[in-house]
């Protein structure tokens, strides 16, 4: 690790890429950040940030339930997030999905998560505290080769689905009434998108942890929307900003071992947003 600080940047970077755990993190991280940027843009556009917040708490409870039951963590993670995503979508269509109901439910789901944490630690498993911290705050440098490959394939699949429905989803998000009149299946797209969002939250939880999913989901998208009003450009920009935060965050966390990668990634994404907000404030008086 010290080699990076001592050597010139090019050798340092080559050293870094020589580490297998860094390569796994970069591979999975890139796929996850592309997915988060894409999904995050639609989350902000559709005003479903609070739903994303709820899903991240569900991710925590689901992962710990799987751990307590002795199953693979990811099984519980994805089952919970995708299931609740679909549920929210179906309820939201009937006008029930209001923020108090979401808040009440996810406050309880988090309580369930505490119970599962207790059951898991009482089960006498070793490394219990570490598992809890990993679910909450992620451990992207700890991804094994098969875990990274699985995460990458799932992310690639979700990105493909999102790109496939991007045009009708954009239409339905901007003007649902007109989209429905033009024959866009608005009622189908809502739950489908929330299911994809559930999958995205599950993916992002593996990288930065359930509590910090928002950093990858909301910050790049909010920054992109400050910089351009064109939806397609903003979509591409959100993806680029998410990937940039991921790459820079990984390099920074590798170079400064005291900083955990989840912190650097989320802090850089937040910094991107702060810069974009500052830029748009500065630009506004001139163009107006």
């Amino acid at each position, binding site marked *: 690790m010290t080699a990076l600080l001592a050597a010139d940047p090019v050798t340092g970077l080559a050293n870094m890429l020589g580490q297998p755990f860094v390569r796994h993190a970069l591979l999975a991280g890139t796929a996850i950040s592309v997915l988060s940027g894409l999904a995050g843009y639609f*989350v*902000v*556009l*559709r*005003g*479903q*940030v*609070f*739903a*994303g*917040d709820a899903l991240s*708490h569900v991710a925590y409870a689901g992962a710990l339930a799987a751990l307590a039951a002795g199953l693979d963590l990811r099984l519980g993670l994805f089952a919970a997030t995708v299931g609740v995503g679909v549920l*929210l979508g179906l309820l*939201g269509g009937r*006008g029930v*999905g*209001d*923020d*108090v*109901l*979401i*808040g*009440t439910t996810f*406050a*309880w789901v*988090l*309580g*369930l998560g*505490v*119970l599962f*944490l*207790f059951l898991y630690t*009482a089960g006498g498993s070793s490394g219990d*505290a*570490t598992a*809890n*911290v990993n679910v*909450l705050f992620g451990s992207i440098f700890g991804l094994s080769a098969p875990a990274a490959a699985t995460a990458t394939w799932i992310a690639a699949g979700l990105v493909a689905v999102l790109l496939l429905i991007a045009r009708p989803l954009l239409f339905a998000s901007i003007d649902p009434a007109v989209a429905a009149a033009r024959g866009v299946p608005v009622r189908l797209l809502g739950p489908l998108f929330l299911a994809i969002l559930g999958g995205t939250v599950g993916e992002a939880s593996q990288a930065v*942890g359930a*509590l*910090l999913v*928002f*950093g990858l*989901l*909301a*910050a790049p*998208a*909010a920054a992109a*929307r400050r910089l351009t009003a064109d939806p397609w450009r903003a979509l591409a920009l959100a993806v680029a900003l998410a990937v940039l935060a991921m790459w820079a965050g990984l390099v920074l966390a590798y170079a400064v071992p*005291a*900083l*955990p990668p*989840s*912190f650097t990634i*989320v*802090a850089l*994404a*937040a910094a991107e*947003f702060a810069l974009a*907000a500052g830029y748009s404030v500065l630009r506004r008086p001139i163009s107006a």
Partner: protein
Amino acid sequence: MTGFSLDLVADVQQLLSYHFMLNALRAGTIVAVLCGAIGYFMVLRRQSFAGHTLAVIGFPGAAGATWLGVGTGLGYYGFCVAGALVIAALPGPGRLTGGLGGDGESSAVVGTVQAFALACGFLFVTLYQGFLSGLTGLLFGSITGVSDGQVLALLAAGAGCLLALAVLGRPLLFSSIDAEVARARGVPVRLVGTAFLVLLGLAAAGASQITGSLLVFALLVTPAAAASQLTARPGPGLLLSVLIAVAVTWLGEGIAFFSPYPIGFWVTTLAFAAFCLALGYRHGRDRWARPRAGHPQPAGSNR
């Protein structure tokens, strides 16, 4: 400790014979009254997302205070109040509704603030070596950790908040229900909103020390949501919200004392059960009342 028996009086006596339980109940009562009252206005103003963010912001405050060797209470209050001022200063006050509809732009900003705050909390925890075992306590609270000094500090903060809420109550209610009319009548809507967010931050900071940062929100939103299912009138609603919060906290602490499972689980589960009962009661009442009343209520009128 002999465990739970069917003799409830003896059980309660046994529970109260422990000083830490006495302190937990005292602190829990203060926190529940505060959260029930302030949470009611939070639900009325549809600021759940802001409330959740304020609750969560306490975590980096407490973690940072531990890292620097200052009291965690200072970290909680400092960060929550500062967070409240930041959210109040964001453009578009009162638009932090979130939800499935709502304003995506401003809630994305609040979400970014929230993620960054949590990331900072994680950084502080990592920098403070060997503190990871305390992480669960900070996030999910503990029943045993309340000192006499903390109870006194909570009492002072709680009394101050309730007093401020009492002074603020009428204009706050007015501007929560109809901001436009309130503004036209000369109510300083923006100032009232900022003051309320600060109160919300103080309540979240106080409650965080008992329930942990992640579960404060359950005490803020759930009793209030249950109360607003039961009555649309603000006075009885406020009272019900406080009563439900206190009952849920007492029961949760009592059950947690006798059961091996953590307090956070019991308080959130009991609160959610109360909400479900209230929801069921309202649906039953609506169905029963509708054919007699002759005119069906328009959808969403009971909010």
